[in-house]
């Protein structure tokens, strides 16, 4: 399918935003400005942009450790302050969780961001309850959990898909199969390199999607969400993609593999070609967009850096709702 040019350009901008966000973040991380750990979503922008495009603020998504991009898009789209995701990663008081959560625990219910859980895959269970609440209240919302191929190893994968199936819950499983869990190739860690093979037994629709083709990804998410909103129960999308960076990754992949994915299968390059092929925008138009986005991200980084650190005494707030911590 072919998307109209406005949609395609918007998605291109979103993808660019993700990439610029991640590159900027990585630069700052290397400078020592970002504490903790870093996992970026470079290479997976099409999947994230497609999801962000279709999820509403009244839906829920559970982002994983590579989802700074989708978090920032949701924040920007629904509240206009994507910089608060950046600030969170810098551990600042202006962050979406006032610095308590960081990269692995950024959440904001107002934009549908239900927060990462750095125990990989645990929210495959949590997502059931969000979906159940929608169902019990008759709300036509979608609860989406974004999981990597490696995370599929967790037992909750089974408990979750099974319960979603028997209760016909409005869950979108968005499995981002980038081929590796840290150093473990997907075909070595799982009985099948196609995760859908493990998901089909639960009896709801499962699809493999080209996760680097923004049109295919956009279309698949649209189809899945329509199915779910119509009350037909869960849907499983497996996005085949590949991550450029990420800690502990490079050394286990061959130069051919790297070249193939970075040069032939770069989702941004592929999207750019599609746009130019429609003949309505020029390369310069796209470069202008890129420059704008880049500048915005730098402004976000500046905002984060200029933001105050949290008040240390806040460290004991919100352990219990309504009760102070006594020790």
């Amino acid at each position, binding site marked *: 399918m072919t998307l109209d040019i406005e949609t395609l350009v918007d998605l291109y901008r979103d993808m660019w935003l993700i990439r610029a966000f991640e590159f900027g973040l990585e630069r700052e991380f290397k400078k020592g400005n970002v504490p903790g750990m870093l996992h970026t979503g470079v290479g997976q922008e099409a999947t994230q942009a497609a999801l962000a495009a279709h999820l509403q603020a009244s839906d829920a998504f559970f982002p994983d450790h590579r989802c700074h991009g989708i978090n920032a898009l949701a924040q920007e789209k629904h509240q206009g302050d994507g910089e608060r995701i950046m600030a969170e990663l810098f551990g600042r008081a202006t962050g979406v969780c006032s610095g308590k959560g960081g990269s692995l625990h950024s*959440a904001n219910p107002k934009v549908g961001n239900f927060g990462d859980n750095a*125990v990989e895959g645990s929210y495959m*269970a949590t997502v*059931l309850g969000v979906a159940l*609440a929608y169902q*019990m209240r008759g709300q036509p919302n979608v609860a989406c959990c974004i999981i990597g191929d490696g995370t599929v190893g967790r037992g909750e994968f089974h*408990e979750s898909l099974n319960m979603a199936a028997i209760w016909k819950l409005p869950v979108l499983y968005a499995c981002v199969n980038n081929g590796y869990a840290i150093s473990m190739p997907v075909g070595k860690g799982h009985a099948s390199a196609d995760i859908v093979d493990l998901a089909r037994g639960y009896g709801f629709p499962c699809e493999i999607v080209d996760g680097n083709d923004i049109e295919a990804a956009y279309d698949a998410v649209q189809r899945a969400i329509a199915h779910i909103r119509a009350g037909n129960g869960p849907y499983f999308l497996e996005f085949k993609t590949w991550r450029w960076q990420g800690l502990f990754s490079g050394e286990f992949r061959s130069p051919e593999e790297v070249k193939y994915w970075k040069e032939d299968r770069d989702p941004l390059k592929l999207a750019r070609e599609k746009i130019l092929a429609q003949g309505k925008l020029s390369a310069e138009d796209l470069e202008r967009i890129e420059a704008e986005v880049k500048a915005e991200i730098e402004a976000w980084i500046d905002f984060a850096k200029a933001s105050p650190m949290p008040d240390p005494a806040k460290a004991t707030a919100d352990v*219990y*709702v309504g009760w102070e911590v006594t020790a």
Partner: protein
Amino acid sequence: MTQATTRTRTFVQALNEALDIAMARDPNVYMLGEDIGEMGGDFGVTRGLWAKYGDARVRDTPLSEAAIIGASVGSAMLGMRPVAEIMFADFIGECYDQLVNNAAKMHYMFDGQFKAPIVVRTACGGGFGGGPHHSQSVEGWFLNVPGIVLVAPSTPADAKGLLLASIENDNPVIFLEHKALYRIKGEVPEGYYTTPLRKAAVARAGSDVTVVATMKLVHEALAAAAELEKEGVSVEVIDLRTIRPYDAETVLESVRKTGRAVVANEAPKIGGLAAELSATIGEECFHDLKAPVARVAGLDTPIPFSLVLEKYILPGKEEVIAGIRSVMK
């Protein structure tokens, strides 16, 4: 608890009343767990509620403890008030991550933006030959977990009032129901009321020694107190009721008065609740204590099947009496 009218009810009936009242009062309250529907649960606590409230609000689940807690937490994030049943407390290890890393931390790590007001009802405790996987006291597994609330009633009236309070509370509550108490009877007020969390009860006033106890051991302590009264020893029994975060004030006030303390808890002694209470009493009542705090607790073993073995390792009235005698020396 100012209600005039009370009726005699079992612990199970009192819990059932609490659930019924909570379900009737708030459409956000619902229940989920294994065999809690038509069957009414392994111990009958949910009996009749499926017929009254239907499939959607009294939800039988598959044997998937992690999914049960996950579903509870997720729905609570959107304002539902799930009451989950984990059939035996021993199985809570299957959803330990869900409780400890997600439910307990969510409010904090997301900077107050989400709450996880779930109640996890679960049957704990030994004494019936249930063996190593159906008899444990699990409070020790969660003592070191900030964000978790542990509630542990010892009477039917408190079971009802504390369960209603737990369902209304905005924090994740693990609600411990000692199996040996399910059939005990007591006066239970009619209708709706709550018993405050985080507030211990003086189950029996006394002046010579304080026994801080939980669940079944409250009854053992009361029996011990009655027996020692004949010897002229006046025992104050404190029912902790909320184990985490607990009411140190009531405990310390009593120990300051009596100068002697015994802490009684069914779980293994090492690293358990008794240790925490003993440490806090030691810190806060150092100059009041006339004798070292005595811990009355289970021996440091799993729970064996054969009744003679089980009886040997679990504390009862005799062990409480021995504990009291040790601090009266």
